[in-house]
Every structure is written in structure tokens, then in C-alpha cells.
């Protein structure tokens, strides 16, 4: 199929998940963040805004692009690094 849902897209990439998260989001700090731009830009859709103003994040299907790092509006809310060598996303065709 050519038109695909986000879930269908994400199923095409391969991820080798490390036990230690390479990106850590302090959901409490997100409470005071008005823009929550991470939710908008993440191409993998890994940020979910909750009703109480915090943000839920799962590092497992991350493309390691860096977009969330650059748009994050609160000092210290998001710490970013690459996963351990050989872990994370592996593209085969892109």
C-alpha cells in the first residue's frame, strides 16, 4: 500500500533495543513547557502528551535524528545521546 498509517511506517524500520535508554525525558519538567514541540516534530511519534501536562516518552523506536533535542524548550528536561554501538535503528534501504 502507498498510503500508510504511522504505525505501518514504523513497522518497516528495524530496531535493536538496548536496555539503557539513550534519551531520557523528565516528564515533570515538561509540565511547565507550554509548546511541547517534541510531540510535533518527532518523526517516529515517540512523545505522547498526557492530560496532567507531563509527557510520556519511549526510546525504543527512535531514529536518532536529534530533532527533539533541538526543539526542547525546557532546560534539563531532555538528555540526549546515541545508543550504544550497534544498537538502535538499522536502515537497510534508505
Amino acid at each position: 500500500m502507498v498510503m500508510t498509517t504511522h504505525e505501518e511506517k514504523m513497522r518497516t524500520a528495524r530496531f535493536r533495543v538496548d536496555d539503557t535508554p539513550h534519551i531520557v525525558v523528565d516528564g515533570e519538567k515538561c509540565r511547565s513547557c507550554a509548546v511541547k514541540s517534541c510531540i510535533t516534530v518527532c518523526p517516529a511519534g515517540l512523545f505522547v502528551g498526557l492530560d496532567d501536562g507531563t509527557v510520556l516518552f519511549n526510546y525504543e523506536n527512535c531514529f536518532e535524528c536529534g530533532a527533539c533535542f533541538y526543539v526542547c524548550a525546557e532546560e534539563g528536561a531532555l538528555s540526549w545521546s546515541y545508543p550504544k554501538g550497534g544498537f538502535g535503528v538499522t536502515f537497510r534501504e534508505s
Partner: protein
Amino acid sequence: MTASKDSENFDVIIVGAGPAGSAAALVTARAGLKVLLIERGEYPGAKNVSGAVFYGSAILEKLIPNWWEDAPVERHVTRRDLVLLSPTTSISLDFRSSSAGYVEPPYNGFTILRPKFDRWFAEQAEAAGAFLLCSTVVDDVIREDGQVVGVKVRRDEGEIRGDVVIACDGVNSWLARKAGMQRDLHTHELSLGVKEVIGLDEAAIRERFQLSGDEGMALEYVGAVTGNVHGGAFLYTNKNSLSLGVLGQLSSLVEQKTRPYDLLEGFKSHPAIAPLVRGGTLREYSAHLIPEAGWYMFPQLFSDGMLVAGDAAGFCLATGLYIEGINYAMQSGLAAGQTAVEACKRREYSRYTLSLYMDVLRERHVLTDFRAYRHAPKFVNGERLQNVYPEMAARASESLFRVDGSRKQKLLPLYWRTLRQVGAKPHHVVQDLFQVARAYLW
């Protein structure tokens, strides 16, 4: 390989096995140096995403004669379209050529898939004698008395020492930042690219894009496809798949609260694109950042013991219609490699020796090209060029070609009216004409 503090010392350590890193590894290894190429992916290319059309065939030809016979290339590009879109209409400038520069070796451009191409290119560096170490992240540089003398890797061995370190670690270059050579980047200097590879059989590709044999086509789109987000889209033909994607400036995605994958779906459903991708199957979805500010985002390019090349140095030329990054990554990787060879010959690794890099970058036309086009990125990411004018042109043609019995309009009033409809002011047009001229003409 053991690499504890006192064991091995490399002449050159290169971080990142993309086109910049493998090019640097190739020339330094050929010069007989002891070279280590470190890559965090499971294999070179595993983390890498481009469109991609590779425009560096002539550069590579000088290093590896007839390289395309052996390399995993998809198609050589003989057709290019620039397409301007309104939500319902498209107009295009169609270029096709059978002139020697396009249809004969070394060809002008090839479509490639990075995980395959990068792997092949790194193998060429290995064949020349470079050591390739995959699945290894470099976290920092080692510094002694202000001089970079190696790198810290996230492995048990910890530290690896080398006389010259070349950072080819791509757009996010943590290494250049850790070494204090690059500042924090701003969201208006970066674009996010989201891409799909869509499987389609070879016969359908040839027929839809009017290609024969291994000829390929590159289509670039501006206008309504990205809504109010500054950006554009592309569609390239591979052997039996299409690569298509949308690019959006990070700051403007945020301002417009637009999700990148929604733009991608919108693009595929546009009446000008839908028939081209019909019947295809999604093979892979991916995303990556692009450094787009060129000249204005260059880091310090050399320091004591260290050089920066490729996207890590901002050497990605976005002039508005398409991106040239892979070729400049190679050119700058080669320039850094040549500089390292000279430094090793002199056994002199200070910034004074490594400043030679600037001369080689000029000889290889890297700095000169980026200087010449330094006004383009800012203008390109201005709203009117990417959104207003293309849409205006498409709308005006919509009226121009429509015959409905009402009074025929002459061209100037027609364009004038459309201009007002899409909200551009006359003084903007004058201003923009000057900007276009400054960015592209002189």
C-alpha cells in the same frame, strides 16, 4: 584489536563512516598511514539517510576508475523536473538530456541507497588498508595540553590514540561540540527530512517516468506540498523502487505545529504525485536532519590535532531546488585526508600545520562554492520562495489554461491578480527579485 591507553597509536582516527569519513580513510590509507575508521552503526550506512542523488561521480572517478561498474548504484539521472504545486495543480520545468555529460560515463548523477552505497564505499577504504571498527560510539576526544590526541569510545577499551582526529560524524556532530569547535545549532538552521522507499516494479518505473534501461529521474517539488512549513519534497527513481520524502525547516515545523509524517502522506496524495506512486508498497520509512545554513553554520574547521568534515562541518549545499551533501562530504573528507597526510609527513599536528585544510578546501571548490551561495539558504527558507510564488505560478496557470467562455485575461493582469490572491505585496516582489539575483546571479 586492543586499544588501551599505551598500546596502539594510529596516525589518523576518523569518526563516522559516511561519505566524508570513508573518503578521508581512503586517501590516508592509500598514502600508507595507519588509519582507524570508527562507525557507530552495525555497518556503515546503517544510520544514514539521503534522498538520494549522488552528484560526485567525477570526484569518485578520480579515486576509483569506473567506480559505478562495481558500486551499488541505482540509476544514472538523465531527467529532472522542478515542479511547482498548488493544492490542486502542478506546473513543471522538465529537463531531459541525451548529451554526453548525462548519458555517458562518468555520468552527472546517480540515484543511490545509502545503507548499500556507504557499505561499499567503506569497503574501498578497507581495501586500501584502513581498519574499520563498527558498532562503536565515540563519546569524546582525548586532550593533552590543549592538543587532541585521540578519542574516547563507549567500549571496555575506553581510549584510542591517534595523531590526527577527523570528525566526520554528521549533522549532529557531538564531537565538534565536545572539542569546542562548534556552537549549539538553531532550529532555523536545520531541516528534518522524512522519507519512504516504495517498492515498484522496474517496468512500471520505466513507463511512468519515460525512462529506458538504467536511466533515472529526479523530481523536486516546491509550493503547496509543505503547507506553511518552509521546505520542499523530492521523488527519485531507483532500480525497482522510488525514494520520496518531504523536508521541513525545524523551526517552521514547530511554528506551524505540523507533524512531518502528515506532510509525507499529504504529498503522496497530491494529484500530481498519486499516479506516480500508485500500486507501490512501502519498504522503509526513515528520518534524518540536514544542516541547511551553509556558510553561516561552519564550525572552527581545524584545531590542534583535529579537523571537521562533511555535514559535521555544515558542508551541505541547499540552494533551494535540491541538496548537494554527499559530494561535498566526499570533497571535504578528501581535503581533510590530504591535510592529515601532509601533517603526518611533517610529524607536525598543530593548528598551524592543519590550517592547510583551508587551502585544500578552496582548491577542491568547497569553500568557494559555499561562499558563492552563502545568501541562498536564508532566502530559500524565506516563506515566499518556497510557499507563495510556486503556488502563485500554479494557480495562475490554472486560470490561464481554463476556457469557460469568460473574458480572456492577458498575462500581466492575471499574474498580478494571483499575486494579490496569495497575499504577496508588490514591494516584496521587488525585494525578492533582488534577493534572487544576489543569491544566484553574482
